[in-house]
């Protein structure tokens, strides 16, 4: 099997779309936060917490969508913590973000050990099943890739459009963008920068958690340690790569996922026998760094990103 065969294989594209889905959720979540002017480094931990919460809910016998909802609420709770500390109190977004990541990760691990003290191999749940869209799923290549996925994947792709509409077509989106460009402009037009930024961080964190939940509920069907494995940091790179635009960032996620799917398949080829597998596993991280370097020259970073706003400060 050479590169050409891989690229013409429908299962490769299906895998790419599947791998992209959690990244799309989390990238859109981070993008909303950053558009409002808040860098959310809690993303990695919030994804862990979301992965655990969704999985645990289903394991306890609730429905899959209840699991998604619980994951989102847990993410929003950590988002609230992040927002309170960084927005009204204006604490360093770096420190708080890393703190939230450590806290959320540790809380998830603690809760996992608490609920399943003895198990060595984590129990599985019945995950989301692929839904074939009639007719479309029969298309060659594109069919299995885009139209035979789970409901969560369809939701991820629908969210790209929804977030775009929100940001560019509604008064709320305008306020979010303005809060990230110049909070004083928001304040002077009678809106509360604090409320808008906090809302954006909380909502964005909810999306990140759903991205995490995708891993346990649609991809791996069980929860294990280190499963998020830097995906959150990769999403931050994807936001930069997408120049803070939902469409471009999602496209980046897809591209990135394609490379990830490719490296897994290349490991099965004769090349994989020669090149150590660790080198393949490095690909996502190296790509992320390359993406950052590539976009560094023309990054259109929100002007007030990481700048706290204190009302009435002299």
């Amino acid at each position: 099997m050479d590169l050409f065969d891989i690229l013409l294989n429908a299962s490769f594209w299906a895998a790419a779309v599947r791998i992209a889905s959690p990244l799309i959720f989390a990238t859109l979540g981070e993008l909303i936060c950053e558009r409002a002017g808040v860098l959310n480094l809690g993303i990695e931990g919030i994804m862990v917490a979301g992965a655990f919460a969704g999985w645990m809910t289903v394991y306890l016998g609730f429905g899959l969508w209840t699991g998604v909802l619980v994951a989102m609420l847990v993410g929003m709770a950590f988002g609230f913590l992040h927002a309170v500390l960084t927005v009204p109190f204006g604490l360093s977004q770096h420190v708080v973000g890393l703190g939230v990541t450590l806290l959320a990760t540790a809380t998830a691990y603690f809760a996992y050990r608490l609920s399943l003290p003895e198990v060595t191999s984590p129990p599985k749940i019945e995950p989301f099943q692929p839904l074939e869209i009639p007719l479309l799923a029969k298309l060659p290549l594109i069919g299995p890739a885009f139209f035979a996925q789970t409901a969560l994947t369809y939701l991820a792709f629908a969210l790209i459009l929804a977030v775009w509409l929100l940001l560019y077509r509604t008064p709320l989106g305008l306020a979010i963008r303005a809060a990230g460009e110049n909070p004083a402009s928001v304040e002077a037009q009678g809106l509360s920068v604090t409320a808008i930024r906090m809302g954006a961080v909380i909502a964005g964190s909810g999306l990140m958690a759903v991205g995490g939940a995708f891993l346990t509920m649609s991809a791996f069907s069980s929860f294990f340690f280190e499963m998020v494995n830097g995906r959150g940091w990769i999403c931050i790179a994807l936001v930069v790569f997408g120049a803070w635009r939902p469409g471009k960032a999602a496209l980046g996620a897809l591209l990135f996922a394609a490379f990830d799917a490719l490296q897994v398949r290349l490991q099965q080829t004769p090349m994989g026998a020669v090149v150590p597998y660790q080198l393949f596993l490095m690909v996502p991280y190296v790509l992320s760094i390359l993406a950052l370097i590539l976009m560094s020259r023309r990054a259109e970073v929100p002007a007030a990103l990481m700048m706290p706003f204190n009302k009435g400060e002299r």
Partner: protein
Amino acid sequence: MTDRERDGAEVVLRLSGITKRFGALLANDAIGFDLRKGEVIALLGENGAGKTTLMNILFGHYTADEGTVEVFGQPLPPGHPRAALAAGVGMVHQHFTLADNLSVLDNVLLGTRPLFSASLGKAAARTRVNRLAQDFGLAVHPDARVGSLSVGERQRVEILKALYRDARILILDEPTAVLTPQETTALFATLKKAVALGLSIIFISHKLGEVMEISSRVLVLRHGKLVGEVETARTDRHRLAEMMVGAEIAAPKVADRAPGPALLTLKAVDTARRGNAPGLKGVDLDLRAGQIIGLAGVSGNGQSALAALIGGLESPVAGRMELDGGQNADWSPRAAIAAGIARIPEDRHRSGTVADFSLAENAILESYARQPMSRRGWMDWRAADMFARRIIDTYDVRCPGPSARIRLLSGGNMQKLILGRVLEAGPRIILANQPVRGLDIGAVTFVHNRLIAARDAGAAILLISEDLDEVTALSDVIHVIYEGQLSPGFARGTKTPAELGLWMAGQGFGGAHHAA
């Protein structure tokens, strides 16, 4: 206020007993006045007199410690710009509150519709903005990105924002500080149209001429107190000045003096753009010993590029910069300091001082790497302390001591420390970029006298200021900067402010290099 004879027009705004403290500072002390329909009140006062604080309270950015605001007879809930906007108060801030990366229309629309409504309603809004722009003479393209607009255009967007929200009361905070004399005239025309349509205006300024021209009534603030209120028709500039500072302002006296040799020469210098501002284009300039060169111009026309060049932050991309006839290959802030250039930065908070450093640590910011402040990489803090003490004594810096954090100092005292830091080295060239911006009269006089003394002692001085009065009062020769180009030098007294204003608006610049 009650004994005043007026034509009985409706009171649209009433402030009573407004008091505001910032820590120990009493920024507003029981201030009260009425604004009537269709009048323009000028709020006059020095920097730090409390004008902006008062208006920020009115608009809801700050909350007063005491006092009430009534708009159209209704009490205004404190601390909410939204309430002020809804009551018909609009404010044009001195530092524009615009998002540069958004369009004009987006900036106008922001916050005008319920946040959770489904659409922005852009089409209708565009029509309305265009009509308002026509009615009030505020030409600006609704779909232009704000970041691409000139300062004057941005101000128009700010006014449009207020008008779009049906403001009946317009507050303008130092609106002319960034305009050419001609743009100021256009602004005043807009304001007169607004008044004719029944709006009331509060005009904040410290420029007496403008106050005389636009207002019907003048309120004077000093040290947070309302110290005077007069009909504009019944007063003159002299009396206003006296009320404003408590004594008549003595214009700085600059004796004639023959200039010495050129210490720094620019020959057809180009520099790179700086953000939104243009770089220099073919600039020729001589800085001569014993001469003050004044640079006039509307802000954002290349002043920062020239300051960055001479200050060592930028190098020419074309042309030559010569110091004592030779070129400096490795141009940097350190090279500039070593060449004897004293640099007074434009923004003392951002680039002049490190707020959380002590006075001593700030005093040695430029000299820390040399003896006696350090030796082979080891700091000598006693030397730093002594140096700071010397500056504190010589330059009358009011502070608790050399180990106090500089954050605690007033702007004037901070500026004196910077002045001491750069002048103690005995510079041959002084780059004074907005040296008195935001200072009170006492500090202004102090800084100006120090600059004149340095000139008389033989230093070459480049004075960059947005205040045309300051430039004309101090400079031996004036250049106007426009879009990165430099006008010929005009000797003291050879051009009227109006003529300089035309140059500032770009007249006389051919686009090509002018003759040196």
